[in-house]
């Protein structure tokens, strides 16, 4: 068994040397696709961090009714703070509200009106698992049911738009990756098919000498896998160069993230091997029937 495997491995390595151009074309196709998928993955990770940063600002502003004194308002503030969907909150008394007003409008409301009409209010941060516009709406509705609450507000339009944007970008990244995978499988399959066609007389001889279909298939499957490995190496080299280039030019302006390179390396090799194997399996299934 081991003798056969060593021979078949040698066969596929020899075939790689004999069919340099198809090997190069197939490996480059895999490399380009892996590069695009890796860049998409990095964008996805970067975007996820950006999203988390933005979603930290998903707040609900609550204005309490006028009939509450400060002590009652703080009690109501604390009862809302105990809700599962709330992560943290800041209570704003009338004086602080007047300060905020002054900061925002550059006017002293007490001087203008002779009194402070601003209500007690609070700003609550939504817990991480509830940072979605539908869930925030549910929290808002629940808060507004309280008799002590006059109104609860959040930046509904912005959050809806942002959530939709995130979903669309994710769908786009996955769709592009899926499409690239399909194209590459088709491409590798056709390249291997060309190699098989160029060796169809050899395959016929192998069969006449008593080779099983598996014996004939293994070198081509190994060849596909090796195309994938070469593709992954090329992709990683290009990715390394690209990363350093971006780092060199953009690091003065942008905070370039340090990615988990082990994951990216594993992603490239596993996806490269998968693409090469699937491509050659597809070619073999259309040429050698079991």
């Amino acid at each position, binding site marked *: *068994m081991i*003798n*056969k495997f060593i*021979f078949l491995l040698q066969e596929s390595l020899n075939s790689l040397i*004999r069919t340099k151009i198809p090997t190069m074309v197939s490996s480059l196709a895999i490399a380009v696709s892996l590069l695009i998928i890796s860049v998409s993955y990095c964008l996805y990770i970067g975007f996820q961090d950006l999203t988390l940063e933005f979603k930290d600002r998903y707040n609900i502003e609550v204005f309490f009714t006028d009939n509450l004194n400060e002590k009652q308002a703080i009690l109501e503030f604390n009862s809302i703070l105990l809700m599962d969907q709330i992560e943290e909150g800041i209570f704003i008394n009338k004086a602080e509200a007047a300060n905020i007003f002054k900061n925002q409008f550059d006017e002293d409301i007490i001087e203008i009106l002779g009194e402070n009409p601003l209500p007690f209010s609070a700003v609550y941060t939504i817990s991480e698992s509830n940072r979605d516009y539908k869930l925030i709406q549910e929290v808002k509705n629940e808060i507004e049911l309280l008799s002590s609450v006059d109104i609860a507000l959040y930046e509904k339009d912005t959050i809806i738009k942002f959530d939709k944007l995130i979903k669309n970008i994710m769908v786009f990244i996955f769709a592009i990756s899926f499409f690239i995978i399909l194209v590459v499988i088709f491409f590798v399959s056709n390249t291997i098919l060309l190699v098989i066609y160029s060796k169809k*007389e*050899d395959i*016929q*001889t*192998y*069969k*006449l*000498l*008593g*080779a*099983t279909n598996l*014996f004939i298939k293994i070198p081509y499957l190994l060849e596909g896998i090796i195309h994938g490995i070469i593709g992954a190496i090329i992709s990683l080299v290009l990715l390394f160069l690209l990363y350093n280039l971006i780092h060199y030019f953009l690091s003065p302006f942008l905070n370039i993230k340090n990615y988990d390179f082990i994951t990216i390396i594993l992603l490239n090799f596993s996806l490269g091997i998968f693409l090469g194997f699937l491509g050659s399996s597809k070619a073999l299934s259309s040429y050698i029937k079991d």
Partner: protein
Amino acid sequence: MSRTKSNKELLEFQNVTATYKKDIGIFDISFTLAAGEMIFLMGPTGAGKSTVLKAVYAAIKIDSGKIIIDNDDLASLSEYKIPGIRQKIGMVFQDFKLLNNRTVLENVALPLRIMGMSTQEIYEKVHNTLSKVGLSSLYNSYPLELSGGEQQRVCIARALVKNPKIILADEPTGNLDPNVSDEILDLLDIFTDSGSAVLMSTHNFPLIKPRKKRFIELSNGRIID
């Protein structure tokens, strides 16, 4: 579908019919091939000689009858067992079917590689066989660097290297000049001395006549009595 045969019978055709399409193929063929025997299948082009050989190495489906090799009936053999049958038979072709990008040594070693032998064992057997067919010095050459006769010797060496009980030779002298053809027949003849058998197709009656071997004459896919 196994049956017990006399030790001397290596191959038996029992009323075999195998067709490509209606009226083209072989019909009701019966004969036996014993150990140490060399049989020539004679007849003009299209007589069915190659089809008889194809039926033995399971390259054509048998419509009726039985072909018994090593107690196995080919007609009832499942598809996955065919490679095993082919590994037991040595085959020599008119067009040699050598791999042109492999050396003589690699070509001859191929059946043993398929059988999964170790490299050491393979090299011993291949060098032994190449010396038997007189090609020891050419082991590192490529087929296209050899003459037609030499290429056919490589093909014979590839058939002999696994010590098969049966050799099938399909017009092995078809592309060779008369002197070389005689040498090829001598080689195959020597092989029968060790108790194995040769079934060879040819349309060259003058070549086989002096050898006084048994021959089966075919016409339109049938044996002529």
